[in-house]
Structures are given as structure tokens and as C-alpha cells.
């Protein structure tokens, strides 16, 4: 069994830092918010100042408070959807890969159908039929998003299970006579961890995009604050064209930053899964010390002279 030891590259550390920041914001954001985000007690369209860090909306609401409060709904939906979709994809993908045969064919067909249907348009159709009180419920929205976002993970997990199934340790467990369920969950599942983690990151990324999109076109309750509804109101009041950048830029940047964080961490997982993506052997500092070129070039094995050779008599090495 191998755990998931992420390589400590700057990319991964930056990614984890960004995600950590937004997770803290999700937890304590609503408490930190200086005002009620829906309160219209302030003058409209104030530009950013020390009282209103990001100014106010055309209704006189404090944008900074909306941003802090909105973090929670956005992140909760993304997490719920990401987790549910990952569980779904694990159940479908691992079962299909492990059982094989007719169940595999059926489940693979199912995930292929869901992959081929464009998710967001389907989401819009489903969501447009929802009663308004369900639209404001983050968990309902999260569940529906997960329904359209599990198929990709299922496909990747199935492929990984298939390759794990025939490895020695699984074979051994089978010969010992362990039950299928036990093999699946205690032998195969831990080895799926990196793939699972990567598919979780992707579905969370997809879910944020999907949720924000729904909110932006007005298909979530406009009374719930999330980054998508902020953009919806900004757009509805022509903020972009009226140069009220402080209204629509911050939520967009937050969405992009969360996505960047997820993608950066995923780089680390990719490198863990595929060793060829890892920076090979020499650190940049060692390369400099050895006077080697910055990048390794195929078919031009570098030559160094600093390493002591056991027999230096005719070792005439060349430094380029």
C-alpha cells in the first residue's frame, strides 16, 4: 500500500496555500463580515474605502461582506458536489473495473452516456424545473451538480482498478480466499488513492464552475449569497460597462484563485502518479553548481568534472 506523499514542489505548496486560505475564509468568513450582506443601509455605488473595502452595490450593500459570506455557499456546494460525485464515480468505476464482464459493460456504457451529454446545459434544464425553495438549498444544488459530474472520474478509476486487479497482491488476497468486498475496499481502494484524489480535485473544480454558472444566469436563489450571484447582480446592473470593477472583479478573481489552487495541487498528484512528470534527479541548484545547462536535453548526456573519479589519471572532462 502506498500513501499519498505529494512532492514538495513550489507549485504544490502554493496550491495548498491558496486552498488553505479559502478554506479558512469558508469557515470564518461569515463571522468576519463587517455588515449584513443583504442590508441596503448604505449609499449606493460607493467606491472602495476604509469603511467599505470593496465599495457598495447599486442597492447600497457592502460588497466585501458579500464576498466573505458568499465564500461559504460557494465552497460548500463545490465540496458537497465534489465528494458525492467522487463517491459515485468510485462506486461505479471500481465496481466496473473489478467485476468486469456484463456489469463492466453496463456501467461503462452508463458513464459514457453521462460523459457525452454536455453537463452544464443538462444542469440548466434540471435546475430550471426545481422549485424555488430547493434552488436556495446548497445541498440540493450540490447533489444535482454531482449527478452531471461523476462520469469522468468513474472512467479514470475503472481503468486504474483494471490495472490493479491483475497485480500480485490482489491475486494473493484472492487465493487466500478473502471476500470480494474486502479485496475491493482494503486491497484495491488504498491503491486508488492518488487517482481518487485527482478526480476529487477535478470534480470540485467542475462543481465550482457549474454552480457559479447557474448562479450567474439566475438559476440559484438570488437571495443566497455566493460568488455567482454577486456576478449575476453586477451583470444585471451593468457594473462591467459602468466601470464598477470593484463589484464584479473580486468574486471572479476568487473563483479563479480557488480553481488555480486545485489545479496546482493536482500537478503534484499527477507527478506522483506519473513519475516521468517529476523533475528528474538534479535540482536546479545542483545543475548550476555542476555548470550544467538549465534543462536536460535528450541525446546530449551532460559531462561534468566536479565529481571525483576513482582514477583521475586521464580523466579529462569537459565543462560546457
Amino acid at each position, binding site marked *: 500500500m502506498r500513501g499519498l506523499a505529494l512532492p514538495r514542489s513550489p507549485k504544490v505548496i502554493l496550491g495548498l496555500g491558496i486552498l488553505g486560505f479559502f478554506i479558512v475564509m469558508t469557515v470564518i468568513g461569515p463571522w468576519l463580515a463587517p455588515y449584513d450582506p443583504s442590508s441596503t443601509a448604505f449609499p449606493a455605488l460607493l467606491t472602495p474605502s476604509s469603511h467599505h473595502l470593496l465599495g457598495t452595490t447599486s442597492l447600497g450593500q457592502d460588497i466585501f461582506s458579500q464576498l466573505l459570506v458568499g465564500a461559504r455557499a460557494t465552497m460548500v456546494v463545490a465540496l458537497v458536489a465534489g465528494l458525492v460525485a467522487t463517491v459515485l464515480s468510485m462506486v461505479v468505476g471500481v465496481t466496473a473495473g473489478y467485476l468486469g464482464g456484463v456489469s463492466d459493460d453496463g456501467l461503462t456504457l452508463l458513464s*459514457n*452516456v453521462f460523459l457525452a451529454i454536455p453537463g452544464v*446545459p443538462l444542469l440548466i434544464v434540471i435546475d430550471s424545473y426545481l422549485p424555488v425553495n430547493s434552488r436556495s438549498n446548497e445541498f440540493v444544488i450540490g447533489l444535482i451538480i454531482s449527478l452531471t459530474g461523476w462520469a469522468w472520474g468513474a472512467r479514470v478509476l475503472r481503468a486504474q482498478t483494471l490495472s490493479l486487479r491483475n497485480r500480485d497482491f490482489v491475486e494473493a488476497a484472492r487465493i487466500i480466499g478473502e471476500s470480494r468486498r474486502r479485496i475491493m475496499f482494503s486491497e484495491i481502494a488504498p491503491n486508488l488513492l492518488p487517482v481518487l484524489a485527482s478526480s476529487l480535485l477535478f470534480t470540485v473544480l467542475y462543481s465550482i464552475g457549474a454552480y*457559479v454558472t447557474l448562479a450567474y444566469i439566475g438559476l440559484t436563489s438570488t437571495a443566497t449569497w455566493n460568488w455567482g450571484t454577486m456576478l449575476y447582480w453586477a*451583470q444585471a446592473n451593468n457594473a462591467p460597462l459602468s466601470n464598477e470593477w470593484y463589484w464584479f472583479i473580486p468574486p*471572479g478573481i476568487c*473563483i*479563479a484563485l480557488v480553481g488555480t489552487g486545485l489545479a496546482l495541487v493536482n500537478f503534484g498528484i499527477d507527478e506522483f502518479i506519473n513519475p*516521468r512528470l517529476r523533475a528528474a534527479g538534479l535540482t536546479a541548484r545542483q545543475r548550476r553548481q555542476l555548470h550544467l545547462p*538549465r534543462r536536460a536535453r535528450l541525446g546530449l548526456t551532460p559531462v561534468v568534472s566536479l565529481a571525483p573519479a576513482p582514477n583521475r589519471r586521464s580523466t579529462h572532462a569537459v565543462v560546457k
Partner: protein
Amino acid sequence: MRTIARRLGLYLLTAWVAVTANFILPRLMPGNPVQTLIGKITSQVTPAEIRAIRLSFGMGFKEGIVAQYFTYLGQLFHGNLGVSITLGAPVSSILRESVPWTIGLIGVSTIVSFFVGTVAGAMLGWTRGSRFDSLIPTATFFQAIPYFFLGTVMLLIFGSDLHWFPVLGAYSQGATPGWNWSFIASVIRYGELPVISIILSSVAGWMLGMRNMMITMIGEDFVLMAVAKGLPRRKVIMHAARNAVLPSIANLSLAIGLVVSGALLVELVFNYPGVGDLLLQAVLNEDYPLIQGIFLVITFTVLAANLLADVVYLVLDPRTRSEAAV
């Protein structure tokens, strides 16, 4: 050919699932779907509108659910998608107006984005470790920006602020639609900013995917052999890239859906008269026949694009070809 037949089968099945979902969804809601819908429409409902809603769901008055289903399929088969509640016109004729705009906009930007991203990704993979690596975090950031947000920012900076590009709409008011040069030129001019913004949003995904595949391929023996053969660098890169592009194309089916979803919203930002803009109007007005019609059209188009990607893959990978021959 067998591979293509199998994929075609999958897409037909998917189309059927989409069509059926369209039929079932309204019925999953509590109560009579027609009544529910009428209840949702806040304005006065005319008998013609009620009829339009009924037609779009394939609902006669006394039929059972199976008969309703077949009526619905029959209507669909004849291209009858019902009548739009708000616009009063048949959904199919409304779509005939807007679909070409969408296919043009998204098609051009997707193709350009795929090529640019693939070439850039191949170079990035080949020169891994060089200065160009610093492009990766920037690309990752761009990949994470929602399409519609980037579109909005672009519109603001390059359209309303700098006036480099015309904003809003697909062609200038002065041009008469038709196959005349001034109209085509105006369409291109108005298309530039939306196309650029879709490319900017989607190119990083292709690029990063291609980079990773390229790095994986460079680790293969046949690329080392190309070097050992003393081939010029350009040819060595081609050996790796020719194989690295295959997974990108295989992933098109996943990506097309996402790109289309994102790009639809860009239409909305730019007031582009395509399906995306129409969808927003339909959603705002709770025009269900129109929403459903748009969903089906988008699904069918995406499936057709998938099939096209499958054919391209088949042409590029001889292994699947001979598998089909066996």
C-alpha cells in the same frame, strides 16, 4: 469501421437518454406539469400558450404515459420541438436562426484553441525545465477563470475602455445580412473579441494536457531512437508529438461538452445572437419548450462533434484501425 459503429451506437443511445430525460423531467415534478408550468408563469396565460406547452411535452388530454411518450417522440422526429411560450414562434425555427451563430463562434474558437494549445503544449513539454516553464502557473490561472468572467473583463478592457473591438452583437447595424462582403467582414470584426476570449479561457487546458503527454512520450524508447538515428530536432519532436496528441483527441469528448458549456455563456456576455443568449432569455422567462429544445440541440451538436473527433482519432491511430479490421 467497427469502432465508429460502436461509438455511433453510444451517441444514439446518449441522444435517446437526453430525449427521454427531457420527457421525464417535467413529470418528476409534483402535480400536473402543465399546470405547474402555467403556475410558474406569472403573466396571463392564453389558451394558445397552454396548447404550446402541452405540445412540447407530447401531452394529449386522455392519453396514458406510454402513448404520451410516443407522441412526444413522433413530434420530435418531425422536428417539432413545440412552440416558445414567450416568442410565440416554433422552437425549431427560432433555433434555426441562432444555431449557426453558435456553431460558427464556438467551432472556430475551439479549433483554433485546440491547435494553438497543442502546439504550445508540445513545445512546453519538449523544453521542459527551461524558462518557458514559468508559463505554467499563468496558464493554470487562466484555465480556472470562468469563461463568462474572462469574457466580461475582455469586453470591459478592450471593448468599452480601449475601443479596440466593437462590442455587443454579431455584426454592425449597418450591414445587411447575406453573402455580401461587408456583412462577412462585419461578422468577423464582431466575432474577434468573443473568439479571443473563448480561446484564452480554453487554450490553457489543451496546452497543459499536451505538455504532460509530451513529457510522457519523450520518456518512450522510440523518441530516444529518433535521437539515436541522428534525425534533426524538428523530426524528433514530431515523433513524440504525433503520439502525444492522441490522448488529447481521445479526451475531446469530455472537453467539447465543457468548452461548449463555457462558451455559451460568452455569447451571453457579448450579446451574441446564438443559442447561449437564447438559453438565458428562455431561463429568465421560464420558457420551458425553448429551454428543452436548446438542450436537445446542444446535446445533438456535441454528440456530432464527438463523432467527428472519433473519426479523426481513428485516422491518426493505426492501432484502433486494425482492431476494427480484425
